[in-house]
């Protein structure tokens, strides 16, 4: 399967260290990882394992100390700030644990603002339709529930029409029922719309719905599981 699928992102020998001297923390130690087109990948790990650091490096929000991240044949580590921003703008969609919506803008405006910056945006109404939130487009974030806010967050990420959706603990701030709804949406994006989704989480159950699960511990990938038969998000309980 790996040979058949197109590699979207190829990270090799990533090392990332924070702090100096005695306070030095090695967040990632020689991590290598490939992300394939159309897959649902879960990065599992406990708090402080380095999973979020890995996600941030993959998303161009942070730079590794060494190693490479190849995107379209170019090493992202050599990108300048402008190129990195461009990468985030065109190829990456972020979904945050705390939604990070702009409170002053309606749901539609939050999405539209991101779409305006993208090179090949989707129609805003379409993405709202995809996340099933058309009726709440004119609402402000404070007028939405947590699940609805996260769906707006997904819609915002999708509006840019990105190749890759990076989700950092997308269910972390939600109750399990609402979280499940979000996972269903993400699953739909992969299975129905052919998107590539990377979910970073510490909830093992979420791994069951993924095509691939990577376990991170103490800054290293300790295990990689290929799920030949992923379960549906609907059946996950935690």
């Amino acid at each position, binding site marked *: 399967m790996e040979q058949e699928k197109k590699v979207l992102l190829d990270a090799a020998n990533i090392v990332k260290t924070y702090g100096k001297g005695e306070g030095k923390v090695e967040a990632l130690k020689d991590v290598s990882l490939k992300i394939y087109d159309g897959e649902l990948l879960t990065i599992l790990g406990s708090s402080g394992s380095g999973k*979020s*650091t890995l996600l*941030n490096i993959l*998303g161009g*929000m*942070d730079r590794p100390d060494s190693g490479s991240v190849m995107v379209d044949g170019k090493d992202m580590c050599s990108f300048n*700030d*402008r190129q990195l*921003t*461009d990468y*985030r*703008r*065109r190829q*990456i969609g*972020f979904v*945050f*644990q*705390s939604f*990070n919506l*702009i*409170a*002053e*803008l309606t749901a539609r*405006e*939050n999405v*539209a*603002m*991101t779409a*305006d*910056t*993208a090179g090949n945006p989707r129609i805003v109404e379409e993405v709202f339709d995809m996340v099933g939130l058309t009726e709440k487009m004119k609402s*402000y*974030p*404070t007028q939405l529930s947590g699940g609805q806010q996260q769906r707006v967050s997904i819609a*915002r990420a999708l509006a*840019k029409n990105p190749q890759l959706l990076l989700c950092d603990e997308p269910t972390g*701030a939600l109750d399990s029922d609402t979280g499940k709804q979000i996972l269903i949406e993400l699953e739909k994006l992969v299975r129905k719309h052919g998107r590539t989704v990377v979910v970073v989480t510490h909830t093992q159950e979420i791994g069951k719905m993924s095509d691939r699960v990577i376990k991170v511990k103490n800054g290293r990938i300790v295990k990689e599981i290929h799920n030949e038969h992923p379960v549906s998000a609907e059946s996950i309980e935690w």
Partner: protein
Amino acid sequence: MRRMILPIFKKYLKLLISIVLVSAMGCGIMIGLSGAYVSLETSLNEYVSDYRYPDAVVTTDVVNRSRAQRLTTKVDSVSEVTARLCADTVVKSKTGRLLSVRFFTFEEDDRQKFHFWSRKPDDSKDEIYLEVNFAEDNDIAVGDTVSFKFDDTFRTCYVAAIVSMPETLSMQPTEDSWGENPDFGFAYVPRRFLEKMSDEKLQKEQQRLDDEQAELLKNWEDAKSRYAAAAAAVEQAQSEADACEEAYYNDYSEESEQAKSLLEEKQTALAAEKEKLVAASKEAADRQDELNDEYNTLEHTDGYDVLCNQFQLYFKEGTDPDKALAQAENVLGAIVKSSYTAENSAVRNRININLEPIETMSYYMPAIFFTVILIVVFLFMSLIVKQSRRDIGILRALGFSKASIRLLFCSVNLVVSLAAVVLGSVVGVGLMYFVGSYYQAFFPLPDFTYGISGEMVVLSVVLTLVVGQISTLISTSSIARIHPSEAMSRPAPMTAEIPQLVQKLTAHASPMMKFSITSMLRNKMRFVFSVVCVAASVMMIFSSLAFITSKNYILHQMYEERIHYDCQIFFKNEPDDAFIEQLNTLGYVKDATKLPYFQSEISFGKQKEKAVINGLAADSKLVGVYGEKSRQLTIPQDGMILEKHLAQTLGVSAGDTVSVDGVDIQVTDISDQCISRFQYISPATAEKLGDVTFGSVICNISEKDEKKLLEFLSESSDYLYIVFTRMSLMGNEKIFRTYDLAAWIIIVFAIIIGLVIVINTAQTNLLEKKKELCILRTLGFQHRDISRNWFIQSFLQFICSCVIGLPTGIYVAQVGLQMLSTEGREYVFANSLPEYLFTILLVFGYIVVSHLIAMQSMKRWDMVESVKDKE
């Protein structure tokens, strides 16, 4: 608790440093300017007392030692009297320029009263001392020689010293003079030198009188012999007539009839001759009396053509100067021309004129600024506490009491305030020495006693500490009341509170634009804080600039609107038309016009005021008379244009009739003059007033021809002095130098404080929106997109700040200028486009600079950390 202080310092280092800097600036300007003022006031008073400025002065034509002696013996409270002669004359400088000089004599003992700036005494020469400013302005140094006009002849004098006396603080020929004039100065000559010259003059006068008397005596002898001859002829004629008459009655004939007629004619002629001789003898007797008077005058005065000879009176301690002066005037009797006590003197008046604006500038503006600074400090401190909300929540959760949290932040503030006070005191002392040295050089003062105003130091220290503590207590109280768990969580966004109007206005804007505008209004307190801080900067800069604008307006009103001539010449009497004609035919003098000059008493109802009146033709282009709002006025043929302040004092409005020295004149218009206030009447009306106080002529002349004119005028015995407009402007600019200094110091401080405030406001605003901006960055917004968005916010806040700051600045400036205005000088608020533009552009420049700094700091942000769900 002590361990918690350091992290707070580390976290808010920049903001705390800003508080220290801004507070220190406020303290510094308060301490510095007030200290310099106190030092100046003390030094001026010491100068006046150390150099023994007299307690009272009586000016009179006759000043002699015997009268001085009489004053000492007859007025108990007088301890010492100095009699000194004074006159106005001209001195030719080494460049050949004729300078007007008022010279005073001094006794040998008086030397100690002078402050010698430089000296090279040489008693063997005819020496003269020159006042330091006058000498410096005209490049005259010790050892130079100048030509000193005395009795219509120039004498070469040796400049033996450059000196100053308290009276030289008042360098004006008359009270109505327009500023200091470098062409006019004070000189001092030893009395023996003047007496020598006076003796020479006396001898000449004695000789003239002797010659006249000899001539008179000779004529008298001739007249007497002619009278005797005439008397004998009359007697002879009478006897002949008698004989003739007798013959006529005895032997009448036609011949005897004719002889009788002839005799009668002869008799009549002789009688007429006798009458003439009697009249001539009476005239001779009268002249003899006059001569005797003149001889007496020569004997009983010091014999100089006096202008304002003076008795300088020194009173015993505890004397009421007004009463003692009145007694002295009684003793001197009718010869007294004028008098004044030290308190009412021109010197004191000049000191007050200089001190009043400096006092206002030294207390009022720093106080306003300090108040603004304290508000800003209050806001900054509140911000620090608000930003520590989460930390406070943690501390509360850990069991710290509200009081201990208050104590923590109050301790932080106390350290900051103390640092500000210490730094401010250092800045203040430095500023005091800087400004003080400038004051000393300006007046100039031989000694300058530096001393800080204790009240202002205490006030600034107490205010800094108290306001800091109060702001900390208020902010911590509100935060400490929140439940720890709530304090630790992120406060809910305030979207719903965006005003309807703003929502409507931004409904069709792009999401980015809407975000720019609405996110600015999200935290209303922050928005108000930002606007107030930037508005404070606008206000401070604008109001401090208004002082310079007002001064420029005064000079503009005087030298651009009013005076359109190059010089004004003063004479003892009004020059005749032939003289004006002569001036106009000199070739280099143009438009010479008489400007009759009256110092009159104007009364309206029960009110009376002394005022200066100028006679001016309605079609004269040399003087512009303007009313309020720069409306040009025409001088009426029969009426008078009254100056605004005088009109207010008298309660006169246009249309009223006032009495000028007993002559009724209708007021047709009210003019607006900030300084050197004059009333204007037509030449025809001037004739009704009678004799002028001074003759005055205005004319145009180029600078290169000034010397020629001065040479020409020096030939005239009526000539008093001349005021060249360009020199008068220089003089007025010199007067404004201390004012300028204080104003520019305030401006510089306002500019620096404004910059610190604006940069900090931008930084704190940026920090508050750090998360949103980082989200935008992670979503793929370029740095320049965010920069543009951020600039829109800053610009909108700047507009709001200008809308608040400019009117506040206008108000503060108006109040300040009103406080600055004195009886003789009104500082008005003048709208000046450059001032508005400068303020707006400067603060806009600050916005741009602070924006660039903020954007640079944004580049260093850790996006990953910022988007996490924590503060």
